[in-house]
């Protein structure tokens, strides 16, 4: 280690070390580049989209018009430009994916730490709740919940988040079970530290990387769930998402007409986002999960 490194702030050194390891992972870098492309599209959609997609002025072509120079991916049943819709749809898919995964990871992290740290009755209670949610068939329950709550983006996030934390909770709990027996926890207690201090200062930083990897993996699941719910017509009708596009394509018989330009592109994009996050998740997991980490 050079003297330079010693002078750096600790968090900077951590980030640097992580980045060095991540750079070496081809899978991770592929995912990251894909994700960056999608992020740019999501942010710049209003600028780069050739046609408007909301309101009456969005009907710019003939219904089910095939791809042409004016409309690269043709038009939908209302004559709206599909390429522009795809660009706008990136926003909703990423937004829902990130937010739902964040929510699920946060719940899983807290429940995992509390359950593992306190043990006993609290652990039993929290883990039985986890078991119950784990055995509920996910999609049917999401459909019911989404139908009851009504179609809006925030509800979709809530529905996905409230069901997606169980795996994280169990993983974190098992990690906490071993962490809390480590002497540094006992040393903190001997110094007079409270339970809350030990949980947040000593245990949380040690499980944070794992939670982060779980979150990245969780995004792909959330993106898929959002597409599924929207495809079934439970999405937010005021926003365009890829799942929503598939929903209308199916509803208006795009497949019977042979309008492949309406069906295939949203499918490819959903797959691409899921693949991007899964690749990154694997790379993170490999670097951060103590199970795979080589000893320094």
């Amino acid at each position: 280690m050079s003297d330079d490194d010693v002078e750096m702030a600790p968090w900077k050194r951590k980030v640097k070390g992580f980045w060095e390891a991540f750079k070496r992972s081809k899978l991770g870098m592929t995912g990251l580049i894909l994700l960056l492309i999608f992020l740019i599209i999501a942010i710049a959609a209003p600028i780069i989209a050739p046609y408007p997609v909301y309101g009456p002025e969005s009907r710019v072509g003939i219904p089910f018009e095939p791809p042409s120079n004016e409309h690269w991916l043709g038009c939908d049943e209302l004559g709206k430009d599909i390429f522009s819709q795809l660009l706008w749809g990136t926003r909703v898919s990423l937004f829902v994916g990130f937010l739902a995964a964040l929510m699920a990871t946060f719940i899983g992290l807290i429940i995992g730490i509390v359950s593992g740290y306190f043990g006993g009755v609290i652990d039993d209670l929290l883990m039985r709740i986890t078991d119950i949610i784990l055995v509920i068939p996910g999609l049917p329950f999401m459909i019911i919940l989404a139908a009851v709550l009504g179609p809006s983006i925030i509800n979709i996030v809530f529905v996905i988040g409230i069901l997606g934390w169980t795996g994280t909770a169990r993983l974190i709990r098992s990690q906490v079970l071993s962490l809390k027996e480590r002497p540094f926890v006992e040393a903190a207690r001997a110094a007079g530290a409270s339970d809350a201090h030990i949980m947040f200062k000593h245990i949380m930083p040690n499980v944070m990387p794992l939670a982060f990897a779980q979150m990245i993996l969780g995004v792909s699941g959330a993106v898929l769930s959002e597409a599924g719910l929207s495809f079934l017509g439970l999405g937010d009708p005021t926003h365009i998402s890829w799942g929503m596009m598939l929903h209308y394509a199916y509803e208006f018989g795009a497949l019977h007409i042979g309008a492949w330009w309406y069906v295939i592109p949203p499918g490819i994009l959903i797959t691409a986002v899921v693949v991007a996050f899964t690749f990154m998740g694997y790379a993170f997991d490999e670097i951060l999960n103590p199970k795979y980490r080589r000893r320094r």
Partner: protein
Amino acid sequence: MENKTVIKVENLRKWFPIRRSFFATLFSKEELYVKAVDGVDFEIKEREVFCLAGESGCGKTTTARTILRLVEPTDGKIYFDGDDITHLKTKELKPYRIKMQIIFQDPYESLNPRLSVFDIVSEPLQVNKLYESQRELKEKVATALEEVELIPPERFMYRFPHELSGGQRQRVAIARAIITRPRFIAADEPVSMLDVSIRAEILELMDRFKREFNIAYLYITHDLSTARYVSDRIGIMYLGKIVETGNIDKVLDDPQHPYTQALISAIPVPDPTMKRKRVILRGEPPNPIYPPPGCRFHPRCPYAKDVCKEKEPEMVKVGEEHYAACWLLS
């Protein structure tokens, strides 16, 4: 001037209940316990080092953890500076926590790998709000690091444990222990994981703090040679009980209990031509769930008599500052 007693332990017991399956509890009403510590008495004065020695699993570490109230005592009394702290609640215990610290065996495990040296050493001050400003906190940490000879402190403050050597880590652990100026430190095999070349330095460091800050030490070890080097008095533990205690030189030079004799004869002597009487112990220490009746040592004792199997021996005075519990002596 008579030194004050800092730690006094009376008849301390720690029994860990055994978790059994649901069916086992249905068919038997008997509760089972691992009797890790089973009636231990001793006291430690200011500037004194009391050593607890014995085989692995004899209850040395549990004794220390119980005194520090890291595990709840099952029975007995713990006094700190004359105050009974046996049953104090978490809040009431806080002022005592500052004055009692612990140093662990493995410096790789006792420091949180995600915290910097500054965070680790300043923690006792932070959780007890023992500082006015960030500046004061930093100064105190720097002083503590200087005291444990991690110099210059600025070079070590923002490092992480994995960037330090074993000896440096143990120094960090000691800095954390002394930063609140405790009156009592339990050192649980503080040098057994370290290189032999570093051991003396660490022990010397601890000895210096003993004199400078009037610390009372509980020194836990299975290594009788370092015990003699640092301790004033010693207690030999076997299966949760102290079998022989007293002045360190008296106990080690003239051991009375057969178990102590066996332990001492196991110390290697760096002279291959020297002939000496070896006392070889048969078997393993018995299961602490079912300690043998009578004297706990009788199944392995070369001199066991009938009475040893029936009645437990009392601690008797065998010399000036020297006590042992064995039927051979009474």
